[in-house]
């Protein structure tokens, strides 16, 4: 069993003063093995914070991240039986488009594609692949929509099975949703 945190579009300090306290209480060090960050952190402090949560922190570059931090545009990570693809998503046109994300999934040759940029949690399956956008953990401003709820995702990966927990902050309360995904066998 491996616990993975999907988190991104933090945008501190340009768009937010901090990660909500309700989330900080849930995100305690020592439990999470890997952090997959979709980018736009947009400060060193945010990166330092993620590093306090887990030893393995994977970050890709968002369109507002500092060049000097040298994050890659995309990253693939093998965890248990899954190949994860990580990309901020501003490179994918039209932004947030499912068919275009599918192209990226094929291009990166991954089972699960994790992207951000839209500041809206989404999860869907297409042609047996899983697509997840953990949204913005700070509820940062976005030009797409103005009703933004802070969110992040925890994934419990075990062999070929993934249980996904979506944490969202609605009117000051944390709601949790559970989604289960099983990797189809290769001969499918």
């Amino acid at each position, binding site marked *: 069993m491996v616990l993975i945190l999907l988190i991104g579009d933090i945008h501190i300090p340009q768009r937010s003063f901090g990660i909500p306290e309700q989330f900080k209480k849930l995100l305690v060090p020592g439990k999470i093995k890997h952090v997959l960050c979709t980018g736009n952190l947009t400060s060193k402090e945010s990166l330092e914070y993620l590093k306090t949560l887990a030893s393995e922190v994977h970050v890709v570059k968002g369109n507002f991240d500092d060049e000097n931090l040298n994050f890659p545009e995309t990253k693939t990570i093998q965890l248990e039986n899954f190949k994860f693809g990580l990309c901020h998503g501003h490179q994918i046109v*039209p*932004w947030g488009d499912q068919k275009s994300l599918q192209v990226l999934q094929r291009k*990166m040759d991954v089972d699960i594609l994790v992207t951000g940029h839209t500041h809206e949690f989404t999860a869907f399956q297409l042609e047996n692949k899983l697509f997840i956008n953990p949204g913005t953990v700070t509820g940062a401003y976005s030009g797409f929509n103005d009703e933004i709820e802070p969110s992040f995702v925890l994934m419990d990966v075990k062999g070929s099975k993934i249980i996904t927990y979506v944490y969202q902050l609605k009117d000051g309360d944390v709601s949790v949703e559970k989604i289960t995904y099983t990797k189809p066998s290769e001969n499918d």
Partner: protein
Amino acid sequence: MSKRFKQQVKQLRKTSQLVSTNEQSKISNQTKENVRKFGFLMRRALDQGKIPAALKNASQMLDGLRTSALSPKNYYDLYMQVSDELRYLEFFLQEDIKSGKSASKLYKEVQFIEAIVPRLYLMITTGSVLIKSKEVETQDVLSDLIEMCKGVQHPTRGLFLRHYLSQMTKDKLPDKGSEYSTSNDQESLSNSIDFTIKNFVEMNKLWVRIAHQKTPGNLTKKEKEIAQKNLDIERKELKILVGTNLVRLSQLEIVTLEVYTEKVLPLLLEQINECGDPIAQEYLMEVIIQVFSDDYHISTLPSILQTISKLAEGVNIKQIMISLINRLINYSESNSDDINDKEQIFTIFSKGIGLITKERKNLPVKDLLSILNSLIQLALQLNPKQIDYIDRVLRFCYNSASESGSLSRDIIKEINNLLTTPLTKYKNVNVLLEFENYSPLIELLPYSDRRKIALKIIENVLQNSTYIRTSEKVKKLFEYVKILVQDEKDMPSESEEDEYQKTLFLAEQDAVCRLVHLLKSKDLIESFKILQVLAQKFGNSGERRIKHTVSPLVFSSLLLSFKIRDYIEDNEEEQYPLSPKKIFEFVYKIVTSLTPLFPLVSLKLLLQCAQASDKCGFEAICYEFMTKAILAYEEHVVVSKVRFEMITIISSTLQTLRIFDEENYSTLANHAGGHSSKLMVVNDQARAVCLCSYLFWIEDEEEDDDSEEDEEEDEDKEKIYFKDTKRLQGCISRAIRVAGSLMESASMFQLLFEILNVCLYFLRYEIEQINADYVNTLLELIHRKIEENNTNLSELVEPQSFNFYKSTIKHIKYCQSQEETEDLFKQINISISLDDLK
């Protein structure tokens, strides 16, 4: 030998002078030896039942305590040894009384002993036995003993004798419920108080007089100084003997609040006042504060403060005051409701501190500030809403500190504490903003301290998520932290900054940026006012800071534009004085003015503004933002890699905008396309041009609420925002051509696969030019390119690229198998591609 020793002691007593250290240890050892010897004889006599002989031995043992030669410390050691022996004697005599002997008789017998010191020790010992026997009234024995003790006036001897008296009587003082009180009326009980106070007063006098004991005459001046110093140290060690009496008083039940206020405290303070000795005064005030209960202090504050103001020069007033205030703070933490008149306490302290500063002109400013800091803590504890009072104290601090001329490090430290105390207590900067005298105090500090406190204030706001909701308060806050948003006269120049200061600068600007998101009102007009205040502050803060602070300002503004739009939509009938347009004009000015300085920051912000103005429905403004973004690109972006990044982000932003009429959109799309095709690096060019194809087929995503009703009506009308299939195909064809020209085959194939996927994307729109045939042509092109290389695809490309192609073909197969895509995809011939993938 013992006779000679006795003579020696006698002689020493006459001189009433301490002897040198060596001699002292000699005398001390000899005396101790004597105590052991006569103590042994005494015990033996007691065991044999020979009481008179035992008393005689005891008296001989006590002769040792008649010396004047020993320093207090050596005398103390001897005293401890003697009192051990006396305890044995007391125990034995008590047993003897139980078997029927008369205690009164015994008490009278010992009075015949010639030497006064042995006589009094034995009178106290037998007096204790007498009280326990209850043959006579307790108070009579006590009065007798306290009177008789007056006979010993030598400081060390007297002090220890009285301590012995105090020890032997401590469990026998008449008190409420005590077995030694024969009557319970107040008057007879108050004898205990009189007895203890009398003993305290006498002991204190003796203790003070130890300081005036003569040091040996044959010493040099320096040796004398050292001897005097040691004497002081040893004397301090004896303080507990005097303090014990006060502890005893605090334990007496009959010392009620009334008795304490009316009788006990006035007598104690009188003695403290009269003795005039700094060591005694400092110690005794401390003991009074520690041993009596807090509510007693609250009732007697004025007289305590008055006494403090009159203490001798050398007394550390600061420590006493802080102890006193801390007692009250601790008390009010748990008993805040029990304190009736909190304001009264403040008034008394104000008067008291006024008196102290008047009486003690040379009280150091740092000490005064330290006392005032404790007072603020007390005020915060008693009544945090007492803003006026705390503000007045801050004013007093300001006056005291500014009058003291240049500030020492100690005073600076105290001012920092004064500023931090209310900050950490309130956990809400809004309260702090009500003070008039907070920022003047900050201004007294040197540059680096001002920076630290400013950062602390902002961090406090952030940690507590404190919203600041009016423009006036925001202005006030920026008075407190202005050092972070403006250059100061006393700041070091940028070139002088070391690594630490550079990091600090970034941390500060980071904090200011975060702060911006907490400065907003629920009233949108007020929120705009706040943003205007910020724009003014940041605008004058210099390029180095603006580079950081402009972004949060713009994002806060855009968020506000959405809120104004929503408010107007929800309240159509109202004539709202504010429009999103005003916000856009506001940010337009800010962002465009920064383009020459920070083109990339500015460009990205312009695109954000374009998105927001699009959502709010302002076409002309949106067009202006896009134009300015493209101009920024043209004029300021030169690095090839950055050009690719920027033009793709311009194109993809444009792709999301829905406000334009056809002509305006077309113009912008042409520019995006034009710049894409001008990129120097071929890879970049192919990708950027290919991306532009998405600009020419845009479906209108907006779902009208009434779309279901109008469905039939709309059926013919395509929900298309913009389409230009010719240019769409132009982009793709150009991308294929550019990719095909690449010399490096791995990159070429990767690009062709990407373009193939774009074609498949558009297939579903049934565009005339991008159909199955077009895809087939591309698949054939890929096949031909592989053949040209005379090898397998897997040899030509990276495995990931190979898999990309493979899964793309699999995707085509999948679409051919699905009902809804079958018609569009069935014409695609994947047989040659499947060969290529073998």
